[in-house]
């Protein structure tokens, strides 16, 4: 049944992309309680600068491709850290305002990108191999899906290790609940917050470069179009649970694939229904522990 296989594996690839976008979002949201609307912009900027870098090199080589991912990560981390320092930090304790500032940032940056790079999509090419396919059980799977899946697994692993083996996870969870008390234990909580933002931004940057290869173009709207799915995935997965986000990414993407194909293009609709059902049945999401 090669169609089912095709739907499953491409669904997995799409899920990997969702997770790459959602991971940073989930990290920031889960730890800091900031629903980062500007996350899409981090992603877009990563994609654009990754492309700007790649086109200055000899297009199409693997080295360029990998370096452009690195560029995306660095760019994402830098803007995210700056955002935290300049916009989020001054709004300490004002959660809603923190969210709003990111809304404003996303509006402004998308407009700015349009001013700089124009509104039209810019079509891009990567290494030859990415555009080719691999035959798996009769299904021709585009190769870039494998890259996406591998990258998503690496990011998941890296984030889980970061949270498990450093104190930052603890500091930030405590800091979100009662920031003053963390400082009263002798800990500079602000540094930890900036770091988490930077890491989330780096994940977004990586996601951006890979997304641009998946879609075949970069455009100022590339981040925004993925953001809503990242939100949904984050919430379905459970607030603050990276593994939850990973599972939810795959569930959402596969559901979307199948519904689009077999149920007359109702993919988005089904995802929305899934979200509503999950929230009503289990408000904390699949793996979320704390109620909000």
């Amino acid at each position: 049944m090669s169609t089912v296989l095709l739907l499953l594996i491409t669904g997995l690839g799409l899920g990997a992309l969702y997770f790459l976008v959602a991971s940073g979002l989930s990290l920031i949201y889960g730890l800091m309680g900031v629903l980062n609307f500007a996350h899409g912009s981090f992603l877009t900027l990563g994609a654009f600068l990754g492309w700007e870098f790649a086109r200055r090199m000899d297009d199409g080589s693997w080295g360029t491709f990998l370096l452009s991912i690195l560029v995306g990560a660095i760019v994402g981390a830098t803007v995210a850290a700056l955002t935290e320092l300049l916009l989020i930090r001054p709004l300490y304790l004002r959660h809603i305002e923190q969210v709003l500032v990111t809304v404003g940032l996303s509006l402004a940056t998308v407009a700015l990108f349009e001013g700089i790079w124009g509104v039209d999509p810019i079509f891009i090419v990567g290494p030859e191999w990415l555009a080719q396919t691999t035959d798996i059980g009769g299904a021709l799977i585009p190769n870039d899906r494998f890259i996406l899946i591998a990258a998503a697994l690496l990011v998941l692993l890296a984030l889980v290790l970061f949270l498990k083996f450093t104190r930052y996870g603890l500091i930030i969870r405590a800091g979100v609940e009662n920031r003053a008390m963390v400082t009263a234990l002798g800990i500079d909580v602000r540094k930890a917050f900036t770091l988490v933002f930077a890491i989330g931004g780096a994940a977004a940057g990586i996601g951006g470069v890979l997304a641009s290869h998946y879609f075949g173009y970069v455009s100022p709207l590339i981040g925004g179009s993925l953001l809503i799915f990242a939100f949904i995935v984050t919430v379905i997965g459970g607030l603050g649970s990276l593994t939850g986000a990973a599972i939810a990414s795959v569930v959402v993407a596969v559901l979307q694939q199948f519904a689009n194909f077999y149920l007359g293009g109702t993919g988005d609709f089904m995802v929305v229904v899934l979200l509503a059902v999950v929230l009503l049945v289990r408000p904390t999401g699949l793996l979320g522990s704390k109620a909000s």
Partner: protein
Amino acid sequence: MSAPSSTAPLLRVSGLSALIDGQQVVESVDFEVPATGVTAVLGRNGVGKTSTLRAIMGLITRSGTVEFEGERIDGLPTYRIVQRGVGYVPEDREVFSQLTVAENLRLATRGGAPHRDLVDELFPDLVQRSAQRAGSLSGGQQQMLSLARTLLNDNRILLVDEPTKGLAPMIVQDVAAALERAAATTPILLVEQNLPIVRRLADTVVVIEGGRVVHTGDAGDLLDDDERTQRLLGVHTTGDDDARTDTEVER
């Protein structure tokens, strides 16, 4: 005014004022904490005891000078002040309710955990519940955790805000004993409503009213002076008031 002491005071507060949302809650407070013993801050509800402690810790915006070991710390951020060895036990427990007991303690640990044994001995309940979320602890258990977080580390001074509130009489005795022990090496600035405890621990008292210091002096002198205690704290320390407020644990 201050307690007779051969050494220089460890903590000197002068002209400390604090403003919260435009309201003066601490007004030009002066006092000193000597290098040993317990200094108690007393006063009725809402007079500014907690605010004074928070101002020293840099948790609210303040003006005036705070000197610790001869150096000014009033410009430092809270975490720097703590890193210098100023331990703080807040009034409202402020445990991290989403974290487990063990995580709360782990977070609080600064450079090893020199006094883990003391804490374990003092609050066996916590050892037993180390995997429980702090938010589901009983009120008293949270209070223990809050104390434990600070007693865990080596500190040069302790600022403790109503440590015995909500604790059962038996634990109150234990905590008092622990503080007494700690005070032998680490001076304590203590806010406490339980006068028998104050009488047992404190050497010096600072009485606050309306955000100002209205009395500083020897603890015993004040508590033995019924008329003055009545005036400053609204309590009879002797006599037979029918609520017998001060004899709570003495029997």
